């Protein structure tokens, strides 16, 4: 007997992954990565997922006016 609940969530997951793959392709094309997409689609997908995961763990500064480091220096 098919578990409709798990099939439903599996379907949602497939849809979500399909959407993510499309999003990654769009972003990659915007970055000019057509050649990489053509020859190494899995590498592009893996890189994007790693970047999204890292971004998700980035702890933003509580004060959004904080200077970046290294700070700007004038050149003499």
């Amino acid at each position, binding site marked *: 007997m098919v578990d409709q609940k798990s099939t439903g969530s599996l379907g949602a997951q497939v849809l979500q992954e399909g959407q993510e793959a499309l999003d*990654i392709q769009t*972003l*990659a094309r915007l*970055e*000019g*990565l057509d*050649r*990489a997409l053509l*020859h*190494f689609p899995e*590498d*592009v997908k*893996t*890189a*994007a997922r*790693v*970047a*999204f995961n*890292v*971004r998700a*763990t*980035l*702890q*933003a*500064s509580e004060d*959004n006016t*904080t*200077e*970046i*480091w*290294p700070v700007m220096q004038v050149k003499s």
Partner: protein
Amino acid sequence: MKHWMTVSEISRGYAAGTLSPVTLTEALLERIDALDTQCHAFIHLDRADALATALIAERELRAGRSLGPLHGVPVGIKDIIDMAGQTTSCHSVVMRNHKAKQDAPVITALRAAGAMTFGKLALHEFAIGGPSFDLPFPPARNPWNIKHHPGGSSSGSGTALAAGFLPLALGTDTGGSVRHPAAACGLAGLKPTYNLVSRRGVYPLAMSLDHVGPMARTVEDIALLLDVMARTTSPSTHPRPESYTHDLKLGVKGLRIGFIRHFHEKDEVADPEVTSALDSACQTFRSLGAQVRDITLPSLKTFGASQKVILMAEGWAVHARNLRERPEEYAQMSRRKLLCGAFLGGGDYVQAMQHRGELIDAVNQAFGEVDILLAANSFEPACRIDDVLEVVRTYTRQARVPFNLTGHPALAMMSGLSTSGLPLSLQLIGKNFDETTVLRAGFAFEQATPWHTMHPDLG
């Protein structure tokens, strides 16, 4: 045996006339010929140049014109550093036509000090992608067990030193690439304070995280090499002592050491042998008169997130054009890692750089309470080089990254030997531009332990 000699032993041999640059060079070349077919430390061995330079050094030394402790001493160069007229391959097909027009300042400084170069050493492609088997050169292997990796990205530098091919080598360190091979190969390796050593003429991975650092088999040799490397920047803006060797023998009595235990016990759990070696190191420092106490910093994960975003963004900026036009020329591992930055936004980079300042403040605050920090290096000994999943899993299990982000000097040194016969390592971290204290503590530990006298048996 000539191949395990330290710089001071070599200098003494030259002064006494029991050794000459030519006989040393010949002995090392013979060893490289015999063993590098299994170790793969060298990308390019320049035998003729090594012998010619040795002959010049010999004449000068015999005439009493010594240029200092490195005169006639061989130094290995990671092939990401420009040497005039030679290809800087970065261990990559992408760079096959990149012939350097001039020496990087760090090479100029070495030549002015009379050091001899033997050619170029292997690395992980562009200091990020390795160990990889889909490149024009084979990956370097660990002399302690050639089935295992030697760490990276300064893999050839680590291999050459541990195999007894050279007494000194240059590495670069963006996320631990000097200290990782130092850990895997049982060596000393220093990531100096950010900007203490010029990065000009060194192919960038991530400019605000990149450091050029000395690697050797002893702390004293690190100090001697750093003396020369630090001449590449101005002492007025980058403070340094007359020599990093002067205070080496002062000991650690009264020195306050902060032990960052949570990095390897809470943030991640290190191999028990690594933990045990760190606990022993604390005992050794206490027995030498230092005060050791636990200290807390932000978590490894917190440091890691900012460092990764910065590395990805800066690395993408360097490689974007090549990755768009000829991605097939990269090894798969480098391609995957360097493409990440394409999927981050400018805001991510700025937020990581804002957070970086706060993390630097946190480490500087710790230095209000202690003189140096003691931390784990790699969380386990080097795994097999052909075990891709284990390489990926273990390469990120380390406590090196925080100090690329903050810029503080960090010395890696051997802290033990695993039951599998592979080196274990620790790190000593200092205040900015206080390499002197870090090296002093490292020297004291080295003299109190047997690790630096151990070498792999390559037959």
